[in-house]
């Protein structure tokens, strides 16, 4: 069984805060899921490195694609803002 401390550590990395009850359930669920993943240990090694995508799709040039003019609409979704800036708590 995955330990309570380990669940708390993963939760911290995940930016989640779990209640005692959630931690207990997560211990049980994650243990069962991770045990199931052990199946992959039996899988053969791949012959070559994983490929990216299927043929017709591919990477594009590293250039800016304009996301039309929706800056105002996007900003209007922010819960806390001042003028055209999104406000956050002090971090220093």
């Amino acid at each position, binding site marked *: 069984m995955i330990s309570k401390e380990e669940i708390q550590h993963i939760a911290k990395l*995940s930016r989640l805060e779990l209640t005692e009850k959630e931690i207990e359930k997560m211990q049980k669920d994650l243990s069962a*899921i991770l045990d199931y993943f052990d199946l992959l240990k039996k899988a053969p090694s791949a012959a070559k490195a994983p490929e990216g995508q299927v043929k*017709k799709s591919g990477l594009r040039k590293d250039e800016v694609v304009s996301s039309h003019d929706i800056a105002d609409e996007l900003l209007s979704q922010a819960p806390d803002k001042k003028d055209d800036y999104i406000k956050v708590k002090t971090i220093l």
Partner: protein
Amino acid sequence: MDLTELTIKQIHEGLVNKSFSCVDLTKAYLKNIKEKDKEINAYLTVTEDLALEQAKKVDDKIKQGQEIGPLEGVPCAIKDAIMVEGQKCTAASKILENYVAPYDATVIKKLKEQGVVILGKTNTDEFTMGASTENSAFGVTKNPHDKTKVSGGSSGGSAAAVAANMACFALGTDTGGSIRLPASFCGITGLNPTYGSVSRYGVIAHASSFDQVGPMTKNVEDAKIVLETICGKDKMDATSADYKYEEAKTDLKGLKIGLPKEYFAEGLDKEVEQIARSTIKKAEEAGAKIVEVELPNSKYAIACYYILVPSEASANLARYDGIKYGLSENGESLLDVYIKSREKGFGPEVKRRIMVGTYCLSSGYYDAYYKKAQEVRQLIRQDFAKVFEKVDLIFCPVAPFPAFGIGEKADDPLAMYLVDLYTGAVKLAQLPALSLPAGKIGKLPVGLQIIGNHFKENVIISVASQLEKMI
């Protein structure tokens, strides 16, 4: 004539011949939604004003004697993970409960250009994570054929809406089976297109190397009409492919169909197998050559899938932090705002997957889980590539069983993951596949899955539409 039973083509003919107006048609659907959806819960938002406004435009065009396109005036439903400008888009999550889409997804833009009527946004598992819609923060969608059963997931709302005549067609998204599974459980046609053939711009991300948008329809021809409209390269989605649907006339005579022996093995419900085999027999009688094929790495597919998908999801869902949009909880520090907003906004399955993904990507476990799963994904892709050297299509069940009871698997995440047994591997290999209604067990529909090679949607559709007439 019940207008809400019509297919896309029949609606088009009716509108052109002025047998009914688009407003009357739209009102007939809205009436069905009002009467039936309290119980079924397929819709999270009904966009009545938008629908009637769009319908009126179509009527005006017809009145003026203008020509209308094949999808013009056809009432449809959109999964609530796809953005429709000015309408709520929640992904069935509390964290996006009041989020209003700032722009149209490319698929919506394309449908609007064709003049469709949008009836509303449909229920899904939260962030499309699930196989039953039980993970929706806004209640389960019941199966219209038996309301004690699930509609399947994650696009359960879309499937139920089409099955219960609350929409002529719907858009769904498929990450591990989320179009095909509910299509099978609700008795409609659902097509998961090849990865890249449809733009995902404006679609809420779940796992970016898997997610695809696809049609959920009353028949195969309708699926084709919708796919033709929504597919193609989009500069706003770098993963979209330069793909155009081209009509194929595939003769059943001489067609090679592979049956993966691993998919007709232990765990498959006998009656589901029988339904699949009886359809396969019809294809054989029409001249198709049936061969047994092997997908030897199938047994690793679910483990592989449930490492890679949560890993991608844990990264994708990092954007929900209470700062830019969505639910925001007060906190003392910036970190506090992140944690409290996520704690309150995400449901149990989403948290579980973020945890699994974070674990698999974390230092010390990355090689054993994520890297290994990427290698196995390659093996699974090679399995399919080898099979498609020998056969044109693969036939198999969509799920090992018909729709299961509400609550039956809700507390056992692993049991729920195994529902994707026959649909997940297809996504690891980024292949197209369709669920075709093939029969019923009692009241419950069962679909047959038709898998094609990359960008062979046209072969799948040609064969499926011939089989549809024989079933």
